[in-house]
Structures are given as structure tokens and as C-alpha cells.
């Protein structure tokens, strides 16, 4: 069966520090991968999605970047965090962009 792992679960980082969130999927090949951010009480904002290794589509220009160094690994990064980067970050995978998305447990990031 397929599983998705996302870590860490919580993170407190100072303003200006770097960020690296990692997401890995097991049990499937060539998944579509997604990073979302969710502000408190709000919906999901699609940040990045990837349909293959090295292929990243950015939805919103901001202080973040994403990379897919391996087929089932998706990394969200920042060189210098801003207060506005705080939120709940979710990684997800799907077989195609039109089929069910399976989500990780999320990372709650607080920038202080």
C-alpha cells in the first residue's frame, strides 16, 4: 500500500533562518506531488506541484522554493523565513492531477 511521510510535525524557526521540509511517498512510482499552505481556519493554497523529477510548477511567487531530487521525494525550502511564512504545510500525492489526493499529516511552522 502507498504511504506518505512528512516531517517534522511542528517547527519553530526565527525570522531569517532557512527552512527545509521533506515529504516522501512509498509504494507508488512517478506520483504527482504537491505542497500546500493553510492559514489558520482557511482553505488550502497550492504552492507547488510536480509531475516528475525536476519538474516543478510554482503557483504563487513568494519566499519559498521546491525541489524533487528523486521520484518520490519532494522538498520545500526557504533561504530566509518571514513571519508571513507561518502556517500549516501539507504535502500530498496523486496518481494524476485529476484523481484522489492523499495527504501527509502536515507540518505546523511558526516563524518567530
Amino acid at each position, binding site marked *: 500500500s502507498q504511504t506518505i511521510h512528512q516531517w517534522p510535525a511542528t517547527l519553530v524557526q526565527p525570522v531569517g533562518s532557512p527552512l527545509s521540509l521533506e515529504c516522501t511517498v512509498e509504494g507508488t512510482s512517478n506520483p*504527482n506531488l504537491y505542497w500546500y499552505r493553510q492559514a489558520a481556519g482557511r*482553505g*488550502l493554497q*497550492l504552492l507547488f*506541484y510536480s509531475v516528475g523529477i525536476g519538474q516543478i510548477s510554482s503557483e504563487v511567487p513568494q519566499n519559498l522554493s521546491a525541489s524533487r531530487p528523486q521520484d518520490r521525494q519532494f522538498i520545500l525550502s526557504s533561504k530566509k523565513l518571514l513571519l508571513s511564512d507561518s502556517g500549516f504545510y501539507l504535502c500530498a500525492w*496523486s496518481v494524476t*492531477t485529476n484523481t*484522489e489526493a492523499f*495527504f501527509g499529516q*502536515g507540518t505546523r511552522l511558526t516563524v518567530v
Partner: protein
Amino acid sequence: TQLLEQSPQFLSIQEGENLTVYCNSSSVFSSLQWYRQEPGEGPVLLVTVVTGGEVKKLKRLTFQFGDARKDSSLHITAAQPGDTGLYLCAGAPNDMRFGAGTRLTVKP
């Protein structure tokens, strides 16, 4: 990009009441998914509707896809506290973009 509008944004009801939430767009979708997200967790798929006019039932939840495949509704009968959560819709094809969601609170 096809925008999905969900309404109401917030809904607070008493246990036992019925409710309907909506997901609307000006675009036609080949399918539409409904998810529920509980606090601190990722969303989980409830149902996918594919055919215009389709009605699917999941226990006390009834999902309907509009005839023109531009909108959908979720009706909950006799809501329970366990139904509390954020209800999200996502239409395809749309690269896994979600509506803003309806936050439902069911009070005991």
C-alpha cells in the same frame, strides 16, 4: 485556473440539524471531489462525483453533482459532533486546486 467558490464559509449548528454546503464554479468539470479535514490533519477524500446529476450517499451525507457539472452540494442529515471539520471541494481538471472550504461546527 478554474475557481471554486464554497459557501457558506462558516456554519455552526446544533446536533440533529440538517445542513447543505455548496461548491460552485463558472467552469465545467469532468469530476469533482469532496474532502473533509479535521484539525491538525490532512484532508481525506469523502467522495468523487463524475456524472452530471449524479447523487451519491455516504451514510448521512448526500453529494450531488450539478447537471451542467459546474457545481456540487453536500447535504448532511441529522448532523453529529463528529461531522465537525473543514469541508473542501476540488474539481478536475484543475491541478488539485481546492475551494476555500466550509468550516462546520456541530454543537452537542
